[in-house]
């Protein structure tokens, strides 16, 4: 199982000081946070993609390319890459390039984007969101899996004998997660391709997450990729920790009460009861995270949102120390001991290259037997 962090990349006022970081400060903070993730032994760093203020990460592969050069083991990913408004050709090229730069430490999470005005800025319409996700991804798949592509569709100019370069590293494209919160169509898409399904559950009650993941698992089996338990599932989560849980609540409350995504609605207590948000001691975070398994089954990737609500960089780095030193080592051990037999590991490039080689060898043997 992989553990990591994902960032939205929002520029948010720190309510305790009244000050917002500049875009430059925020971008540098995100880079520092990613490097810290590797330092404390996390597996994954994923960045969001946005094209409107107050968000900064409009160019994820630029950012991940820098992080690739500054890290050795961290898997670089997204949360999410907009499969609707980006040209699938450019996604194919950018992420194959990043694969080579990062020696395969790359995967990608597809998402639609829920901000209506962004679509027309890229010549699209949010009402076509699902159809765009389906057509663009079908093309992206072919651009990675086939060397020469001739293609015609509804949304993009046709392609004649086109080769997307560079080709995926070792002939194996980045693993794809499909992220969706509410759309069963996307769970169905992930299941159809046998790709991963990431449910960003951070603002949602467990019952909803369970329903979406269960749908994906059933359909994954329906399409013949394995048993429902073998489907590849990722979840989000957001936490704030201090050794003493009262200290965590006291320190985080002003951030919760004023954050654009949390504030001025339910109380911190109500929100932590109804969603995965956990504010307390590392032990409380461990117990809460382990409980996710009770309603989605054994899963492969857990990403935490740590740099939220306008928390200053120094605080976020302290949080990552606690996460990497006290929480994740216990979670690794506990999840591993609970895991049922036959549940696959989280996907990595070397493992997928080996699996592809094995597949090719079997195919060849079969041919020889037949001839």
């Amino acid at each position, binding site marked *: 199982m992989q553990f990591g962090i994902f960032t939205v990349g929002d520029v948010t006022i720190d309510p305790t000081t009244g000050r917002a970081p500049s875009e430059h400060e925020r971008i540098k903070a995100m880079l520092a946070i990613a490097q810290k993730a590797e330092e404390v032994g996390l597996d994954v760093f994923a960045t969001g993609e946005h094209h409107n203020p107050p968000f900064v990460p409009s160019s994820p592969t630029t950012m991940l390319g820098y992080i690739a050069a500054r890290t050795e083991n961290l898997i670089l990913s997204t949360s999410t890459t907009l499969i609707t408004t980006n040209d699938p050709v450019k996604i194919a090229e950018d992420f194959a390039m990043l694969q080579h730069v990062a020696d395969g430490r790359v995967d990608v999470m597809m998402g639609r984007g829920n901000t209506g005005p962004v679509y027309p800025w890229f010549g699209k319409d949010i009402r076509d969101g*699902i*159809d765009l996700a*389906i*057509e663009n991804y*079908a093309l992206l798949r072919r651009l990675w899996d086939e060397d020469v592509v001739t293609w*015609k*569709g*509804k949304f993009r100019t046709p392609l004649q004998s086109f080769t997307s370069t560079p080709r995926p590293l070792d002939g194996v494209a980045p693993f794809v997660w499909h992220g969706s919160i509410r759309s*069963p*169509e996307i*769970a*169905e*898409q992930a*299941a*159809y391709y046998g790709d991963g399904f990431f449910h960003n559950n951070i*603002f*949602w*009650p467990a*019952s*909803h997450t369970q*329903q979406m993941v*269960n*749908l994906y698992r*059933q*359909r994954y089996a329906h*399409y013949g990729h394995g048993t429902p338990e073998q489907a590849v599932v990722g979840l989000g989560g957001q936490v704030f920790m201090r050794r003493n849980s009262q200290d965590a609540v006291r320190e985080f409350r002003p951030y919760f009460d004023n954050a654009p995504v949390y504030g*001025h*609605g*339910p109380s911190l207590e*109500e*929100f932590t009861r*109804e969603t995965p948000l956990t504010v307390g001691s590392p032990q409380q975070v461990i117990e809460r995270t382990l409980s996710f398994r009770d309603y989605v089954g054994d899963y492969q990737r857990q990403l935490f949102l740590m740099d939220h609500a306008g928390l200053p960089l120094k605080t976020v780095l302290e949080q990552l120390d606690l996460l990497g030193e006290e929480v994740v080592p216990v979670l690794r051990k506990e999840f591993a001991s609970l895991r049922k037999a036959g549940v696959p590991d989280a996907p990595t490039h070397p493992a997928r290259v080996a699996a592809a080689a094995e597949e090719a060898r079997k195919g060849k043997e079969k041919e020889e037997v037949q001839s």
Partner: protein
Amino acid sequence: MKLVVVSAGLSSPSSTRLLADRLAAATVAHVDAEPEVIELRDLATEIARHFVTGFPPARLAAALDAVAAADGLIAVTPVFAGSYSGLFKSFFDLIDKDALTGKPVLIGATGGTARHSLVTEHALRPLFTYLRALVLPTAVYAASEDWGDDGLAGRITRAGVELARFMAPATEDRAPDVDTAAAIAPRSLTGAITSVDPLDGFRVVPFEQRLAALRAE
């Protein structure tokens, strides 16, 4: 049969609830149903939280589900500023857009003066028409002076008989039109349809169909 009564009265007891109860009694006199009353006052903060968090707290989810699963609905609001109350509108803003399709709805309103009596026609009826409900012809408005008047009792009886008649199961086995079939199916906690597909209430369109629909001719 399930009869759900939504009352947006704010005081306790309220004249809005009083009208709602009388409408319910007039209905169950003619159809075998146990009315379930939803007092929006009790759900007011949960309704506001649903707007800011995007999901309903458990009690509100149960209320929304009850409305969606009802065979008939009575909806009564006080008149505020010449229209339905904000709380009443907020509750119906949170209803799944298909949850009321084809459902018989009896509308009622209360106010301090008879001058607002057309509020049922210019405010409530268009709201439920938008939600594709079957809004019954008789709507009941009760001003302060109506409570001591015989006319109100007559209108309540007529409205109850109408709702009971439309709640009764159809005698012949007619297939509803396609657009309505999914919408009137039972729903799960989150409002998803439960009878169309066994997979936890999600209606799955096989992926090949979606791909094929996009293929260039």
